[in-house]
């Protein structure tokens, strides 16, 4: 016991520690919302994966002149709309959207040859689709053998991508997924959405828990570092809400669960691993200070302005200079609309 007056542990903390700094700030995100744990420069080899929102991040990094690994590139003269329609220029290889950590862990296992997905080919109208990335060939292919051959080549290119990157930017999108009951194979879309057919005896809904997400993220980190020692990770959480849920909860409640689990898992990874950072894109977009202005008309997706502000904070924090944001504004239009398999759910929800 001392005789001095009690001193609050909050006394002397910087202004950013107090909510009043948010209330007083007005519109726009705080400059010091993100303090990078490690340096990223234009020369850093970055590879990306994740949900639809990750496509925005990847495109912004490309436009800023960052060194983005792309092992299934399409020549520059091929227009953006054509390339992206077929899964090019979205990520570091043509694996399409990866919504859950389990999906990425599975891809890495497949690349290693330690895992063989069940039901890898789905059918629709006589055309055959890669069940693990059904949107990269919107019209499907002629035969199941062709799907297998395309996948074999894709896995080799993805293996190369994961071995080249120094920093992996992974955007966590969902906890909900559809899995093959017997093998646990996880799919990016529900059977019957883009292709395939839903058989409740074969496929089941699964909502990943915090513990499962953490286990998957640790496994991903270990697998990537086995290929590329020193590889660092930047985790983000997509601010885009769920299109639909199969969890029996209201979609708003289900969205909150998904984002909370993913956000907590990202925080846990950061606290356990010095080579993992968290970039608060989720907080920037959903901030109360934003007053909803970053949300698109459907209140689910985000606006181009949101992507612009999110990436501006990322670039500023890393000291990466880029042109006037206005120069980029013209490119943040419909051409940039991410290719999202889960949007197709809307059609099924009507």
């Amino acid at each position, binding site marked *: 016991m001392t005789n001095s007056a009690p001193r609050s542990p909050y006394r002397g903390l910087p202004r950013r520690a107090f909510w009043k700094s948010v209330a007083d700030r007005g519109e726009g995100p705080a400059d010091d919302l993100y303090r990078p744990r490690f340096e990223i420069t234009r020369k850093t080899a970055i590879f990306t994966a994740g949900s639809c929102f990750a496509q925005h991040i990847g495109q912004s990094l490309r436009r800023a002149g960052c060194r983005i690994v792309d092992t299934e590139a399409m020549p520059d003269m*091929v227009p953006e709309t054509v390339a992206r*329609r077929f899964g090019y220029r979205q990520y570091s290889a043509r694996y399409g959207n990866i919504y859950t950590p389990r999906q990425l862990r599975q891809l890495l296992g497949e690349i290693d040859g330690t895992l063989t997905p069940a039901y890898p080919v789905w059918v629709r109208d006589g055309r055959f689709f890669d069940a693990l990335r059904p949107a990269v060939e919107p019209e499907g292919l*002629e035969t199941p053998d062709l799907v297998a051959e395309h996948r074999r*080549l894709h896995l080799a290119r993805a293996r190369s991508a994961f071995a080249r990157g120094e920093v992996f930017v992974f955007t966590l999108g969902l906890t909900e997924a559809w899995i093959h009951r017997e093998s646990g194979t996880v799919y990016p879309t529900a059977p019957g959405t883009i292709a395939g057919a839903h058989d409740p005896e074969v496929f089941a809904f699964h909502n990943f828990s915090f513990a499962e997400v953490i286990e998957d993220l640790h496994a991903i980190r270990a697998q990537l570092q086995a290929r590329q020692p020193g590889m660092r990770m930047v985790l983000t959480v997509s601010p885009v809400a769920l299109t639909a849920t199969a969890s029996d909860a209201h979609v708003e409640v289900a969205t909150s669960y998904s984002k909370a689990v993913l956000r907590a898992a990202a925080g846990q990874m950061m606290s356990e691993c010095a080579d993992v950072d968290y970039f608060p894109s989720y907080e920037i977009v959903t901030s109360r200070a934003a007053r909803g202005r970053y949300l698109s008309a459907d209140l689910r997706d985000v606006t181009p302005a949101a992507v612009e502000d999110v990436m501006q904070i990322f670039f500023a924090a890393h000291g990466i200079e880029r042109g006037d944001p206005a120069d980029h504004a013209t490119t943040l239009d419909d051409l940039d609309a991410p290719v999202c398999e889960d949007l197709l759910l809307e059609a099924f929800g009507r």
Partner: protein
Amino acid sequence: MTRGTARIAVVGNSHIAALKDAWVEMAPAHPALDITFFGAPQVEMGKMTLDHNLRLAIPPKRLDAETKDLLTRINGRCALSLARFDIVLRAGVTSPWFQFPQVIAARDVDGLRETGARERLSRAAFDAVLAALAETSRPAKNWRKWTGPALYFMPLPATSESCRGSERKLYRPHAALAERSDGACQIHDLLFDAVERVLDEENITLLRQPADTLTEAALTQARFKTGARRLRDGTPQL
């Protein structure tokens, strides 16, 4: 001008110099053809516009004395009225085939090309890329929905097969295609089928490079290479 003579204008960049050379040799055998050549180096050609009276010229505001002198030395004039011709041939038009080896040299294509490449294009993706690159052949605004004299476009010839010996990065895809040529000619034909459709929508006829001048990799056979001709020096006079 004799009765029954066809008046033809051949316009374009330095590539028309080779056509002029050929015409000098061929002209005696074709007395019914009256051909006028009008050309300029690519930069100056790119500045030329076509007005509503089909007068092809560099707008006065962009025509400096040096360029005027250059055009006069080459053509004896600075402008050409296309309306007075029966046929107009635009030669040396940018060819999407020049870039296409970048797409296919290191890729196979379902049903079209099998070389054991490490990447593979589906037929749907290939068709979409092909259509997009063919679209680049659509001409500038004043050449569209053409209602003037019969208009023909002759794209640049395919790169010469002699590029295989080049160390220039630009020609690496062409050289790679020459090494593994499977399907190249069929893909070349499909591309120009698509170009033909684009030009047809604008009432323009495509003049294709003759198949018997191409190699199996759809490059121009080396025996047709005569060396680059430049109009920059003001020669040859057209």
